[in-house]
Structure formats: C-alpha cells, structure tokens
C-alpha cells in the first residue's frame, strides 16, 4: 500500500491573453481572451513509506505544482491523489498536520522572534504534546547543531543557519513525510553538505519519506536513488538515476596530458571534445571501446604524462535529457 499515490494528475490554468500594443491594451479593457496552460498532464507515480524521491525538471515543468497539490494547498483539475489515506486538498487540516514542508530560501519562522520561541509557538500550532515536543526539539537541535542559535532572532541568522533552523521547525511535529522544495538553493558549500547529510540521516535512520525538488544535480547525486523527471507537465522518466544516465549518455570522458605536443587523434567511437597544447579531452562510448583498451591504444603510440577517466557532469546528462525529450524551459 503506497504512502503517496498519484494517478492521472492534471492541472490546467486559464490565463488572460494580452494583445500587444496600445490598441491591444485598450481592447483588453473591454473583452478578455483566455488561454489554457496545462501545468500538469497525466502524471502518475507512487511512493512507499521511507522512500527518498528526487523530482527534477526544467523551470516551469510542473514540479512546484505537483508539490503544492501533494501538500494540499492546490486543487488539481482532475486525477487522484492520496497521501497516507487522505486526499490532501479535501482534508487540509488533518493532512498538513502529518507533513513537513521546507521551501528553499524562505523561512516559516517568525522574523523577529528568537528561534526557540518560534519552535515553541509551532509546537502550540501543531498541538504537539509537551513531553514529545521537548524530546524531538532537543534531538533536532543536537542533529542540526542549533544550540548557539536558539536565542537569536531569525533575522540575525545567515541563510545557512536559517535553513538549518527551518529543517528543525518542519520536523518538530514528527511528520512521516517531508517535502523539500529546492532546499539547498543559495547555500554555501558546507551548508549544502550539511543539509544533504541531514536529509540522508533522516531518511535512512528515521524512515521519513522524503520528496525533494531541486535544480542542484549534486543533491540528486548525493541523495536520490530514484528520480522522476517532469517536463512540460508530463512525467518523462521514473526510476534509478543510473538508468537515466545510461539512457541519455552512453559516454565517458578521458583526459590525457601528453609528454609532448597533443597529437591529432582519429579513432572510431572517439571524439575530441577539447584540446590544449599538451592535453586532450576525449569523449568515448565504453560499449564500442572500453576504457582500458583506449588508454592502451593511445599510450602505445604517444608518451603520456597523466590520464584521468571521468563521466560527463550530471548537469550535462540532465540537459541532454531535456533536449532529447524536447522538455526545455517552458
């Protein structure tokens, strides 16, 4: 029995059309024309309890719309959604008591209140039993190292500190499901690592179901075994990230530093991507010519200083994927 069930989800918006020019603006005063935007069309997937799913897609693809529907603040046009047995947008109060949501760069804590006061207020809002609240709060404060920050008003915190406090705030009421909307956006590198480590711990050790939307592919690499790609309102792929990569780019990279000048290279299944005076970056298909064979072939003919085998950057994989499915920015 899946914890989250989405079936044939569709969401259509009507937007007023604006004709260009002065006459268009005046005509707009008198008569409005409408255009339909299909933000989501026939999206279906399900999540078991304890899964961690990454939701990626170009801007405007429908990620936020899906998360909003799943959290109960937006009604779909058609389709079926069930979270923990409840229909989110019909049972709003009961549903939101069971979920936690973190929006990147936006904090739900009160700006002028010390962090701890914000936590206490949230405990009252969510009707958390005092004993449970204290335990959970102390646990989260320890996990996220919030001790020194507790007495400071939220406005005085850096973005990284605020996001850590934000995670604690979202989990005080012990939700079984956590929605993360671009949680690492704008964070510095150490903060990103900290957030990823925390989310991984939450999911693996405490069994919290996590649905994460992100543009940062390193989030995906670090956290998700399962990836859903949404483009143009449609679900493009659903499965382990490795199969996504394999379906897009059967390609690896070879970087060679030569002892002498970089040679001209022509081999089947190999393309030269970049060249400097003494180095080459090659792209090759490991199915056609495995890495050891390629290296041996080159080293046999040229003096080689250093060799480095790599994969295309994850951003490239995704960009290539969007291209393949014509799913570029809406």
């Amino acid at each position, binding site marked *: 029995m899946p914890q989250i069930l989405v079936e044939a989800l569709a969401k259509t918006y009507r937007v007023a059309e604006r004709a260009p020019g*002065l006459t268009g*603006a005046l005509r*707009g005063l008198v008569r409005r024309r409408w255009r339909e935007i299909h933000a989501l069309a026939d999206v279906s997937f399900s999540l078991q309890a304890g899964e961690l799913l990454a939701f990626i897609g170009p801007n405007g693809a429908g990620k936020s719309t899906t998360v909003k529907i799943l959290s109960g603040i937006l009604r779909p046009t058609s389709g079926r959604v069930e979270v923990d047995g409840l229909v989110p947008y019909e049972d709003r109060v009961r549903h939101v008591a069971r979920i936690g949501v973190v929006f990147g760069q936006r904090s739900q804590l009160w700006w002028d209140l010390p962090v701890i006061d914000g936590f206490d207020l949230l405990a009252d809002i969510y009707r958390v039993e005092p004993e449970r609240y204290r335990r959970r709060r102390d646990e989260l404060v320890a996990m996220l190292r919030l001790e020194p920050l507790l007495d400071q008003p939220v406005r005085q915190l850096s973005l990284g500190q605020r996001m850590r406090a934000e995670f604690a705030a979202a989990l005080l009421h012990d939700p079984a499901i956590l929605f993360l909307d671009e949680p690492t956006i704008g964070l510095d590198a150490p903060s990103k690592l900290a957030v990823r480590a925390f989310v991984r711990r939450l999911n693996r050790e405490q069994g919290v179901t996590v649905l994460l939307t992100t543009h940062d592919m390193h989030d995906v690499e670090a956290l998700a075994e399962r990836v859903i790609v949404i483009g143009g309102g449609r679900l493009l792929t659903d499965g382990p990230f490795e199969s996504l990569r394999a379906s897009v780019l059967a390609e690896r990279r070879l970087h060679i530093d030569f002892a002498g000048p970089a040679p001209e290279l022509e081999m089947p299944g190999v393309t030269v991507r970049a060249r400097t005076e003494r180095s080459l970056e090659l792209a090759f298909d490991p199915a056609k010519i495995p890495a050891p064979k390629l290296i041996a072939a080159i080293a046999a003919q040229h003096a080689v200083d250093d060799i480095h085998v790599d994969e295309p950057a994850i951003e490239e994989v995704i960009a290539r994927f969007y291209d393949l499915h014509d799913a570029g920015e809406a």
Partner: protein
Amino acid sequence: MPAARPYFAAFRARFQLMLQYRAAALAGFATQLWWGAIRILVFAAFYGVNAAAAPISLADAVTYVWLGQALLALQPWIADPEIGQAVRTGGVGYDRLRPLDAYGYWYARSVGWMLARALPRAVLMVLAAGIVLPLVGLGDWAWQPPSGVAAALLFVPAFALMTMLGAAVLMLANIIVAASLNERGVNAVLTPLVIVFSGSLLPLDFYPDALRPFLHLQPLAGLVDIPFRIYFADLKGAAALQGLALQAGWTLALIGLGRLAMERMMRRLEMQGG
C-alpha cells in the same frame, strides 16, 4: 515630426503602463472621490441649518474640498525617510560641492516628485468633479471654475507658491529626520500640524474667529487656505496680493532655514568623519 517621435513613444509607453495599473489607480481615485463627498455632505448638513454663519458660500466650500482632493499630493504630510537617508549620505558625498547644491538638488526633486504625483490625480478630479458632476445634474456639488479672470490669473502664482512652500516644508522635515534619525517622532508632529494649519481639515475661517489673525499669518496657511481662497476670489485684489506675499515670504524663510539646517548637519557629519 521625427524629432517628436521619441516623446510620443515615451508617452505611449507611459499610457500603456497606466492602463496596466488601471485597477490600482482607479481604486485610489475612487477613494479620494468618496473622501471629498463625505466632507461635502458634512458641510451641506451644517449649511442647511445656519448658512448665514458660514464665512464662504456652500459652492465655494465644495470647490475648496475638490481642489484639496485634486492637489493632495502637494501637501507635505509625511517626511520621506528615503530622502532623509539620501540627504544624509548624499550630503557627505557632495562634500566637495557647496551645500547649496545638495539642498537645491533635493528641493528640485521634491517639487518634481510632488507635481508628478499631483498631475494625474488633478486631471482625473477635474474630469469627475468638474465635468461629470454638472453633466449628471449635480452641478451644485461640482468643482467650479475660478471665479473670474483675475482669480484665475492670480491662482497661477498662488499654485506655484503652494508647491514651492510644500517642498520647503518637506525638505525641512526630511532634514530634521536625517539629523535626528527619528522619522516617527517627526511625522507624529508634522502630519497633524500640516493638516490643521494648512486648511486641509477645514478652511481656516471656519475655526473660532478669535484665532483668525494667527491662522492667516502662520506659514502653513499658504499651503491650502490662501491659494484656494484666491481661486474662488474670497481673497481678491489687495488681499490676494497680500496672500501671495505671505506665501512667498514663508517659502523663502523656510528655504533659508532648510539650507541652514542642512549646512549645519553636513558640517557635523564632516567633522565626525561622515
């Protein structure tokens, strides 16, 4: 006329922008119309009981109200903290230039800003209260044109002076805010003072007769009371000229005071290292 094309283009772009914000602009305008209407209804109630006690005719009182709504943007009700801040920092930046330039620059900007906000409202108000009301048969409650050629002619300098006086008051308020860093305190005093003593709340002659001499001479009278009474010739001939002189005199005095205050403040900032 090729030379005029960029200006037409700018006007068209501005007009399109205005249409986009039509909802907001109309709402603000409607609010002001209603404001004026309530004030007129109150006047009507009191005039109905004892019109003889009134210092001006009901028609003039009505015109006074509409004029006030139209030209509301010219009133220095609130010190603008942004300007105060910019004066404070910009003044230091200008330390190579004479203080006169900083004051002059911000003064000119205040005048421009007030006029730019007043003009569209005034146009709409003329349309609504000056043209539409008579057309629908409510001419008695309409904004009447100036009472005669002399009044119309005299209103031009009166209008210019009320704008300049308003800017001078605003500059002084902003400098005080910049110097004291207490915007709320300044506004707490400024707003009620200006509303009462300019004549925005009531034409000054409505207040008890004993106060008249003081009310007519104080600096804020030139913001509303004097120019509007020139408009419907309650002040005419020599009295009108005296009114203009009063406006001008207080404008110069407040500009002088403002320049002095600004110089002192910037000198203090320079000594402190800015």
